[in-house]
C-alpha cells in the first residue's frame, strides 16, 4: 500500500485505514459508539488533521468521521475505478482554420467525477472537443500541453519555452495560437510574448478564467471559444489577452499583451487595458476592432523570434520610509536592471537618491514606472523628478510597471550594452507606450 492509495491520510486515520485494508474509492462501514456510517472513502486534503476520515454517503454528501480507539472500520465493497466514456466527438470539418491550443496550467475545461468529487482537467484536443463541442464549428484544434503549472510558478524561462512553442506552431502554418494560462501572472506572460514574438503573421491569444471550469457558471468555455474564434479569424496579428468585458456572459474583449493588467482578485472582468483601449470586442459571435492602429494578419509575414530574458532585473515598489539598502542589495547581488515603481508622476523619497545614483554608476539600468497604475509619468514637473532624471533614471511614460519589468528583462536578454539597452527600453516595440493619454480610455472603467 503506497501513499497514492490513501492520499492525504496521516497519523491515526492512516493507521486505522491501513489496518482495515481500505483504499480510496472503497466502500466502508464505520461503526463508532452507537452510530454507523457507510460510504465511499474520499481522499483527504493535505492540510486536514490526522484524526478524521472522509466518506461520501449514498445520498451524495461527504461527512468526516473522527477516529477513536473504539472505532471499527470494515471494508464492505471494492471501489470501482471510474472509466471515462466520452460522448461521441463532434464531426471534424477539415476546411476550417487550424488553431493550436497550448496549455500551461490554466484549466480551461474540466469534468467532474461525481463519485469521488474529483475534478479532472480536459487537456487533449479530443477532451476539449468533448467538453466544449462548439469548438469543432470554429477550428481544427491541435492541442499541446507545454507544462502544468499554477501561474505564480511560471518564470521567465517558461516565457522562453512558450515563445519557442508558439513559433513552432506558426512555422507549421497555424491560423492562430491560443495559450491557456492561470490568470494571476497572465499579464506578465502576455507582455513577455509581446516582446519575444515580433513581426507576427497571426494572432497569439492568451486565455484564462476566473471561475473554475468545473462549475456550470464558469467563464472558461466562453473565453476559450472567444479565444479560438479570434485565433482562427481575427484581422489582427498581435499578442492579446482574452477575457470577459463585464460580469455578464455577453462580451469578450481582447487586451493588448503589453497593456493588460489583472485588477481584481475574483471578478470575471478582472483584466483591464491600462492607458489604452482593448484591441477588439467579440459579441454575439461578431468581432469588432476598437483601435485603428494595429498589426494586421498576414500569413506570409516572417515571424522574428527573440525569446531570451535576463532574470537579473527587479521590480521595486517605493513606499514611505523605504530602506535604501533594498536598492543596494540588488546592486550587490548582480542585478542589471531595476524598475522603480514610484509614487505619482514618478517619484521616490530623496533619502534613496544616493543608492539610486550608486546603482546607475555601476551600470545598473534604473527605470521608472508609476504605482498609480493609470496615467503617465511627468518627471519634469517637480524637483524630485528632475533630480532623478539628472541621475540617469529612465522614465517609462505610461508603461505598466509589470510590463516595464518584463521589457527590461527582455532588453537585457538582447544586449549587454547599457546605452543600447536604454535605447531599446525607450523604443516602442509592441504598443507598450501610448502616444497620447486619451480621456476615452478611462471611460471603460466607469461603472
Amino acid at each position, binding site marked *: 500500500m503506497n501513499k497514492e492509495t490513501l492520499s492525504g491520510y496521516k497519523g491515526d486515520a492512516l493507521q486505522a485505514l491501513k489496518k482495515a485494508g481500505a483504499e480510496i474509492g472503497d466502500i466502508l462501514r464505520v461503526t463508532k459508539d*452507537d*452510530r454507523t456510517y457507510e460510504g465511499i472513502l*474520499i481522499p483527504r*486534503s493535505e492540510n*486536514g*488533521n490526522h484524526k*478524521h476520515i*472522509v466518506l461520501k*454517503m449514498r*445520498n*451524495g*454528501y*461527504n*461527512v*468526516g*468521521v*473522527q477516529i477513536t480507539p473504539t472505532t471499527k472500520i470494515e471494508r464492505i465493497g471494492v471501489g470501482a475505478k*471510474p*472509466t*471515462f*466514456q*466520452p*460522448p461521441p466527438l463532434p464531426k471534424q470539418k477539415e476546411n476550417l482554420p487550424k488553431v493550436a491550443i497550448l496549455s500551461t496550467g490554466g484549466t480551461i475545461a474540466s*469534468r*467532474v*467525477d*461525481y*463519485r469521488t*468529487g*474529483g*475534478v*479532472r482537467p480536459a487537456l487533449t484536443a479530443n477532451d476539449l472537443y*468533448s*467538453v466544449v463541442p462548439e469548438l469543432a464549428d470554429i477550428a481544427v484544434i491541435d492541442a499541446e500541453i507545454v507544462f502544468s503549472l499554477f501561474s505564480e510558478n511560471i518564470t521567465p524561462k517558461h516565457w522562453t519555452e512558450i515563445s519557442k512553442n508558439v513559433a513552432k506552431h506558426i512555422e507549421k502554418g497555424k491560423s492562430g495560437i491560443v495559450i491557456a494560462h492561470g490568470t494571476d501572472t497572465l499579464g506578465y506572460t502576455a507582455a513577455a510574448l509581446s516582446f519575444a514574438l515580433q513581426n507576427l503573421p497571426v494572432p497569439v491569444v492568451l486565455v484564462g478564467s476566473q*471561475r473554475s471550469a*468545473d*462549475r*456550470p*457558471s*464558469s467563464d472558461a*468555455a*466562453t473565453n476559450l471559444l472567444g479565444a479560438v474564434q479570434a485565433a482562427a479569424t481575427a484581422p489582427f496579428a498581435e499578442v492579446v489577452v482574452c477575457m470577459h468585458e*463585464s*460580469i*455578464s*456572459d*455577453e462580451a469578450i474583449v481582447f487586451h493588448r499583451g503589453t497593456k493588460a493588467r489583472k485588477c481584481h*482578485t*475574483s*471578478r*470575471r472582468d478582472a483584466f483591464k487595458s491600462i492607458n489604452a483601449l482593448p484591441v477588439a470586442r467579440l459579441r454575439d459571435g461578431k468581432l469588432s476592432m476598437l483601435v485603428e492602429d494595429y498589426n494586421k494578419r498576414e500569413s506570409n509575414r516572417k515571424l522574428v523570434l527573440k525569446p531570451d530574458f535576463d532574470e537579473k532585473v527587479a521590480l521595486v515598489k517605493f513606499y514611505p520610509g523605504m530602506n535604501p539598502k533594498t536598492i543596494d542589495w540588488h546592486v550587490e547581488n548582480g542585478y542589471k536592471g531595476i524598475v522603480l515603481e514610484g509614487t505619482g508622476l514618478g517619484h521616490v523619497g530623496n533619502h534613496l537618491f544616493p543608492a539610486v545614483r550608486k546603482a546607475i554608476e555601476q551600470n545598473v539600468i534604473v527605470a521608472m514606472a508609476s504605482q498609480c497604475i493609470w496615467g503617465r509619468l511627468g518627471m519634469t514637473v517637480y524637483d524630485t523628478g528632475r533630480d532623478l532624471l539628472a541621475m540617469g533614471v529612465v522614465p517609462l511614460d505610461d508603461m505598466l510597471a509589470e510590463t516595464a519589468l518584463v521589457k527590461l528583462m527582455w532588453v537585457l536578454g538582447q544586449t549587454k550594452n547599457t546605452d543600447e539597452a536604454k535605447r531599446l527600453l525607450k523604443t516602442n516595440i509592441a504598443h507598450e507606450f501610448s502616444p497620447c493619454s486619451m480621456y476615452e480610455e478611462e471611460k471603460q472603467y466607469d461603472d
Partner: protein
Amino acid sequence: MTIDYAKVGLKAGLEIHQQLNTSAKLFCNCPPKLFTEEPTITFLRRLRPTQSELGQIDPAAFFEFQKGVKILYEANNETSCLVEMDEEPPHQLNPEALEIALLVGLLMNAKPIDEVYVMRKTVIDGSNTTGFQRTCVVAMDGEIMVKDKKIPIQHIGLEEDAARKTGEEGNVIRYRIDRLGIPLIEIATAPVIYSPKEAEEVALAIGRILRATGKVKRGLGSIRQDLNVSIPNGALIEIKGVQELELVSVVIEREVERQLNLIKIKEELQKRTIKKEELKEEFSNVTPVFQQTECKVIKTALSKGKQVFAVKLPKFTGLLKKELTTGIRLGSEMADRARFWGKVGGIFHTDELPAYGITKEETEKLKKTMNATDQDAVVFVADSKGNAFDALKAVAERAREALEGVPEETRAANPDGTTRYMRPRPGAARMYPETDVPPIQVKPEYLAQLRSQLPELPEQKMQRLMMDYALNEKLARQVLDSEYSQLFEVIVQNCGVSATTVAVALTETLKALKREGFAVENVSDEQFIELFRAVGSGELAKEAIPDVLGWLAKNETATVAQAVENLGLGTLKPEELERIIDDAIRDNAALVKERGTAAFGALMGIIMKQARGKAKAESVSELLKKKLKQFA
C-alpha cells in the same frame, strides 16, 4: 373521490426547508432580506452543464443550454454582494446558522456529524448563479414522536436558499438574487407516512421544533415543504415547494388521485391495444386548415409568420380530456411538457374542440388532413417550426409514457394544491465538494455546551404557556403553533397587556385578517410591540387592534401613531367621552324619562357606535350608569 390510503398503499416522506432568522447569509455578510424596488444591478449569464467523469450530462440541463437559454439576474447593493453574483469565493459557513441546525439536530435526537463538509449540488435552472447549490449535512439519524408513532429523521442539513424567479421573456429567464444565500435548514423524514393527514401532523410537529429555537423566519415563502409520494404501480413523484402547511395533505390527496387515474388510463389504453411504436413523432404542417381561422391565438401566431404543426395520437380520443384530479387533465400534462421542452405558449387538442374560436369545420378538416379517425386525437401548436417540433415531440413522448402509467418526474406545487410538471427526475445526486469552504469540525466540548442550553421542547412550552400566562388549552396550542410564539412572550412581558388579549390578537385576529386578504406577514415585530405598548398604556383601546393591524399590513413602513391618526382612532379624553354620553341622553330624553336606568342597553349601543376603538367599553358603561342614575 374518497380514497382508502392504507389500501392504496401510499408512502410519503417530507423534506422541510425553513429559512433561518440569522443576521447574515450563509456564505457572506449580506443581510438575509428581500427587496421590492427596481433592481439597480443586472447581469446576464449562461449556465453550461458540466460533464461528469462518465461523460454524462443532465439531459434537461443540456437541452436548456442548447436552446440558448439566458438568465438575467437582478440585484441591488443592499441585499447582495459579489458572493451572490458568483464573482467572489464564498466566505466561511455562517457559525450562527450552523449552531441553529445543530440545536435542531439535538432536539430531534439526531447525531451531529464530526466534520461537516459543504457540497455543491448541481442546479442548472438559473436559480443559483454558480450552477450549484451549497449544502451540507449537519446531523443524521434522528427521530421525533408524532401521535405515539416514531418518525425517523434521516438528516438535518443546512443549505443556501436559491434566487427567486421574477419573470421569463422568450429565452431569457429573470431571477432576483436577494434570496440567494439565505440560510435554510433542511429536515428529511423517512418515507414512513401513510396518509395525507399524517403528513400534515408530521409537518406541524417539525415546524414546532423549528420554532422552538426562536431563530426561524416567518411569513409566506419562509417555509417550503417538498414531498415524495408513491403508490404501488404508480411512481415515486417528487413535489417541490408546498408553501403552506394546510396544503401538505391536499397536495398528497391530489397526487394519489392523479396517479390512480393515470393507472386507469393505462388500463384503458391496454384495452384499446395501442403499441408504443404507433405513437410516432411524425409532425405535419397544417397551417392551410387555419388560413381563415377566427381563433385569436392562431391568428396572432400566423400574423407573426409562425405556422401550425400537428401530431396524431392514434386511439387516444377522449383520454386527453379525462380529468386526473381537480383541474388537471392528461391534456394539461401534455401542455406542461410542451411548454417546458418547446417553449410554446400552449397546445390545442381535438378532445376539446370545437372551442377557442376553432370551428367544427376546421376540426373536421384538421382530422382529415391528419388521416385521423374518430378513435384518434390530434394535438397541434402554432409556433416556429423548431419550437413546435420540440413541443410535439414532448407530447408524443408523454403519450407513450401514458402506456406505462405514471411517469417519474419532479413536479412543482401550485397554490391550489395541484401540481405541474417541473422537470424530469434528476439522476443520482450530482454532488461534489465545495473546495472553497473548509470543512468544519464540530468539537465535543461545543456540543456539550449546546446540550446544556437546549431550548424547551414544544410540549414543555405548552405547559408553561398555560401555567405562566394563564392561557386556556386552546389558546396555548394556538400560540404554540403560531409563527409568533416568540413574539407573544416578548409582548406580554413588556407591554402591560393581558396575555389572553395578546394571544387572541396574534392567533385568531391575524388568521381572520389573513382570510380577508390582508398581508399580515408584512407587519414587523417592532410594529406589533409599538401597537401593544399603546394598548398597554391606555392610548389605544384593545378593540382597535384588528383595524390597526389591517392598516399596518397595507402600510409596511408606517408607525402605529400614523395608523391611529389615519383610522381616526385614539382614546377619547374623559371630557370628550362625557360629552358623547351627555349628547346621547339629551337626544333620547324621552326614552330615558320613560325607562330610567333600564334605558342603559339602548343607549350603550348608540354611544359605542361613536366610541368603539376609542374608549374601553367598561369605562363607557361605568360613566353611563352614573349619568343615568343622576337623571333617574
